[in-house]
C-alpha cells in the first residue's frame, strides 16, 4: 500500500516511508531532485518547568487534513519545485515518541530546508490539533495560536522564519 503524502491518525510515524512517498509522486521526472529534508517532532520530558509524563493529541481530523492540503498548496506557490509530505499523530504519546513527521523534496537544498521549516510553523498556526500535557501533579491543555488560515501576517511570519 502506498503511503499518502498527507495524513493524520493514531499510528506510529515512519519517517523513511513518508520521505520515500515523495519520490514516487506522480508527475515528477526521476533524477531532478537533489535534496530531501526531514523533520521529526518528538514528545519532550519537560515543558515550562514541568516534568511531562505523556501527551494526548486530539484533532478535528477532516479539517486538519484540509489544513495540511492548504500548507502543501502554499508551498507549491512559494517554492514551485518543492513538494511536501506531512503526517501528524493523535492519541496518547510517550516521551520520545514522534508526534509529527515532515519531508520536503526539491532540486535544491535551500528550498527543501525552507519549505520544511515553513510547514511546521504553519502546522502550529492553522492545523486544528491540540495537545494535552500530563505532568507530575496535573494536566493542562496547551493553547497556542488562534487558527486563522487567511491571516496574512501569520503566513508572512512563517515565511520569514523559514527563510531566515
Amino acid at each position, binding site marked *: 500500500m502506498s503511503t499518502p503524502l498527507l495524513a493524520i491518525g493514531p499510528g506510529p510515524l515512519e519517517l523513511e516511508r513518508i520521505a520515500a512517498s515523495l519520490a514516487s509522486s506522480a508527475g515528477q521526472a526521476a533524477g531532478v531532485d537533489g535534496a530531501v529534508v526531514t523533520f521529526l517532532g518528538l514528545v519532550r520530558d519537560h515543558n515550562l518547568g514541568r516534568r511531562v509524563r505523556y501527551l494526548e493529541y486530539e484533532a478535528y481530523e477532516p*479539517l486538519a487534513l484540509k489544513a495540511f492540503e492548504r500548507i502543501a498548496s502554499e508551498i507549491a506557490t512559494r517554492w514551485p519545485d518543492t513538494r511536501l509530505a506531512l503526517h501528524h499523530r493523535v492519541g496518547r504519546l510517550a516521551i520520545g515518541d514522534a*508526534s509529527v513527521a515532515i519531508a520536503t523534496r526539491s532540486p535544491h537544498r535551500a528550498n527543501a530546508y525552507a519549505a520544511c521549516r515553513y510547514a511546521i510553523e504553519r502546522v*502550529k498556526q492553522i492545523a486544528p490539533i491540540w495537545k494535552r500535557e500530563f505532568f507530575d501533579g496535573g494536566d493542562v491543555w496547551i493553547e497556542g495560536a488562534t487558527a486563522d488560515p487567511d491571516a496574512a501576517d501569520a503566513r508572512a511570519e512563517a515565511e520569514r522564519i523559514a527563510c531566515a
Partner: protein
Amino acid sequence: MRVTVRLFARLRDIAGAAELTRDVAPGSTIGTVWRQLASEYPGLAAYEQAISTAVNADYARMDRVLGDGDEVAFLPPVSGG
C-alpha cells in the same frame, strides 16, 4: 432547524460533551449558536476572542449563516506539532 455542534480540547471539557445538537431559528449564524452555548456553559464565554470556527469541516467566520443539518465546530487555540 437543527445543527450539530462539535467541541474540542478545553471547550469539550468545559461543556462536558464532544458533540451536541441544537435547534436554532432559520437565519442563525455561527455566532448565534456560540452565544447560546456560552449562556448554557458560562465557562465558554472567556474563549470568545480566542476561538476559531468551522462549518462542515471548513474554516468559517462567526457571521456565517447556517443551514439545517450543518456541523458547526468551535476550536480553541491550536497546539499541534
